């Protein structure tokens, strides 16, 4: 009897203790979390300054101008929202970049416009993009477009109410949003919520849908406090959820829905932190630029929330009034420019890097003229010499016109091609499980997965080869083929080549689990197909 009482009293004491501590720690947690976020922020800044080789913050801001249009945009939006920096140098650099280079992806155009808006720029790029990009590239172009409209920019053809309705109609059954398919993705859901946040109070439909999305996020949160995106737990997803929740005014550090096993979002994101202060994409990986930039945004967003400021994407400096809207005729012109540009490229071979072609042709002409003068001076005056020279010159100019040189950075820009006549989407995976452990070379992935179920839109008539080429380009995977078009034959993917592991080894492909009897350049895909590239050691006999 006595022991029973003892056990009960000990249990009661423990319950009291825990219930007493919990709110206490939560109350303390608020200050702590803010301090933690500020600490993360400063360390990222310190890390970036270290990398840029400067020792004051304005110096870092100026050095970002070199990366204008390439990787600096998220830092710039966050810096502009976090404090008073002089960002004019960067603004000029970005305007220059956008004038020189045509951006094919509508989402990227909107991202640049949003960056310009955050800088308080009144460049007419914003106006052009407002007119021609919203809704042109799936859900992300709606999200970024809505961000712009939330800041007071106007669009006659696509008012914010219409965007909101489109977004709500895209919501999946489970409450989330995704780029394709009908299963929600934490990243996309969070980014959509960020855009919908300002409309939650005024629009009942939006607030209902946001509740659903929050429910989805809460159930998608893992025991470790993080989220999965394309099968991997990563820092960016957490960062996006933080921005979304702080934009909605939810204190996720105390909200039960987003604390799993006592792990809050901030402590979850800390597990991706490297000793240098930067962040990695997945756990125990090395530094990742995009993860660090997004965590930086997330911390700024959280601090703004804690200090009672506006949401992250309600831009402090933007100046929608100062923007001169381009006239109607101009608008239609630029729109057609954007949409037709890729096709005209295909025909003439001129395009993006058009500038270098002019220089190259002029250089060739100069060399030709120099050669002609030299021959004249050396006394080789037979007319046939000059005919040969003209032939050579014409051939090299033709080569310059038909070839398309790109830098590695431009080629592996990680963006899928915007397709016009999409007929659905397919998934592609690339695996080499059979050779795991057979060789200790560093380029063979330990889990045998080179690319895990990657989803891509397909256009009418696209083949397995086209999708492999696009997926490799988007994911930065090397591959080599012999022959092109319908004769394409894949000799190597990810530096793993045929016949490296015996005479019968090489790459085979399966579509929906069976091996087609035609080459990969001939197999035309249809919606929902599942492509698998498998490295075989046995002429395909061991691939399933």
């Amino acid at each position, binding site marked *: 009897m006595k022991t029973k009482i003892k056990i009960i009293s000990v249990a009661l004491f423990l319950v009291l203790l825990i219930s007493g501590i919990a709110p206490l720690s939560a109350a303390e947690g608020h200050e702590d979390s803010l301090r933690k976020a500020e600490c993360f922020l400063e360390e990222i800044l310190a890390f970036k300054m270290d990398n840029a080789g400067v020792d004051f913050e304005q110096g870092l801001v100026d050095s970002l101008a070199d990366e204008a249009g390439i990787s600096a945009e998220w830092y710039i939006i966050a810096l502009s929202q976090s404090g008073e920096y002089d960002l004019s140098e960067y603004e000029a650099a970005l305007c220059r970049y956008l004038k020189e280079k045509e951006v094919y992806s509508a989402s990227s155009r909107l991202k640049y416009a949003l960056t310009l808006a955050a800088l308080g720029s009144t460049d007419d790029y914003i106006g052009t993009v407002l007119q021609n990009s919203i809704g042109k590239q799936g859900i992300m172009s709606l999200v970024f477009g809505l961000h712009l409209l939330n800041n007071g920019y106007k669009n006659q053809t696509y008012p914010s109410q219409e965007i909101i309705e489109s977004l709500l109609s895209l919501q999946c059954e489970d409450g989330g949003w995704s780029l394709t398919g009908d299963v929600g993705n934490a990243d996309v859901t969070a980014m959509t919520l960020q855009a919908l946040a300002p409309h939650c109070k005024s629009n009942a439909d939006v607030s209902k849908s946001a509740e659903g999305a929050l429910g989805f996020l809460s159930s998608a949160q893992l025991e470790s406090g993080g989220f999965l995106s394309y099968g991997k737990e990563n820092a960016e997803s957490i960062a996006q959820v933080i921005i979304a929740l702080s934009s909605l005014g939810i204190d996720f550090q105390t909200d039960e829905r987003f604390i799993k096993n006592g792990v809050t979002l901030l402590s979850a994101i800390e597990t991706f932190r490297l000793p240098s202060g930067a962040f990695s994409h997945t756990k125990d990986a090395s530094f990742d630029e995009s993860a660090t930039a997004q965590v930086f945004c997330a911390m700024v967003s959280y601090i703004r929330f804690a200090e009672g400021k506006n949401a992250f994407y309600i831009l402090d400096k933007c100046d929608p009034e100062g923007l001169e809207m381009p006239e109607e005729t101009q608008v239609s012109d630029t729109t057609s420019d954007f949409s037709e540009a890729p096709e005209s490229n295909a025909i003439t071979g001129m395009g993006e890097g058009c500038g270098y072609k002019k220089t190259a042709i002029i250089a060739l002409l100069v060399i030709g003229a120099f050669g002609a003068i030299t021959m004249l001076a050396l006394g080789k005056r037979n007319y046939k010499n000059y005919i040969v020279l003209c032939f050579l010159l014409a051939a090299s100019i033709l080569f310059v016109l038909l070839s398309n040189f790109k830098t590695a950075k431009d080629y592996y820009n990680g963006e899928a091609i915007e397709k016009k006549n999409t007929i659905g989407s397919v998934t592609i995976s690339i695996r080499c499980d059979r050779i795991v452990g057979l060789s200790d070379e560093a380029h063979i992935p330990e889990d045998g997965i080179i690319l895990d179920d990657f989803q891509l839109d397909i256009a009418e008539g696209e083949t397995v080869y086209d999708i492999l080429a696009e997926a490799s380009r988007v994911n930065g995977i090397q591959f080599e083929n012999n022959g092109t078009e319908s004769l394409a034959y894949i000799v190597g993917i990810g*530096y793993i080549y045929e016949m490296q592991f015996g005479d019968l080894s090489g790459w085979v492909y399966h579509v929906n689990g069976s091996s087609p009897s035609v080459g990969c350049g001939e197999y035309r895909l249809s919606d929902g197909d599942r492509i698998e590239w498998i490295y075989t050691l046995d002429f395909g006999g061991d691939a399933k």
Partner: protein
Amino acid sequence: MRGFSDYNPIAVSLYFLSVAGIAMFCMNPTILVLSLFASVLLFFVKQGKGDVSSHIALLALFFAMALINPLVSHNGATVLFVINDSIITAEALIYGFAAAAMIISVIYWFRSFSALMTEDKLLYVFGSFSPKTALILSMGIRYISLLSRQRKKTEQAQRAMGLYKEDNIVDRTKGGIRIFSVIVTWALENGIITADSMAARGYGLSSRTHFSKFKFHVSDAVLIISIICADALIITAISLGTLDFAFYPKLCAAEPSLFGSFAYVAYAALVFLPVFIEVGVSLKWKFLRSKI
């Protein structure tokens, strides 16, 4: 002390077989650079500058081979740039240079080989175990100089007949093609005549003997043994993987080791051996002459 070409032909053949063979089967940049440098150096030391245009042609061939490789091979992690969706990588370019260095150095080794190993030497080396091989080999090598001499003759004849114009590229190329076709016809005809004339003189009959004036000295044995020792060391290093060099996907040399550096030193000693001998001989010659 003798000049390198005066050593016993067996030693000289073994030497060329070793240096060229190792360069051909070991794609290691250090080995290839040593081989290329030494082969060109030996050519200049033994034969002076020779026909300058042939060096220029080989240099052009070197760069052509090096630059073509990245266009056909797209392996490698360092992407330099992209032409029409084909990636051009630094590794493929470097591999191209390595392969070109290998081929050009082997060409130079054989140019020296054919200059040093005259017909009688070839007959001596191969005659003892297969006279037919020796005959075919020496006749084959004979054709190189024979054809170039015949080309000059044909060219002169064509020019004298006024069929050969040199003031523009088109006509010169046409003339060159015509001369080539003339030489090919001539070579076929010459081959038949040679065969007939040799048959008439009794070649190919059994129980024929051959004569040679080459002797086997102690220094020949020393040379052969040292070549074999160096070969053994290098081949062991190759089979142990200490000289391995991976070009793809990233340049990666085997861990530097003491044994590996011995192998490098052995190969360097091997490739520069004839140059040392030649320089030593000429120094001694000058020294002896200065005392007269």
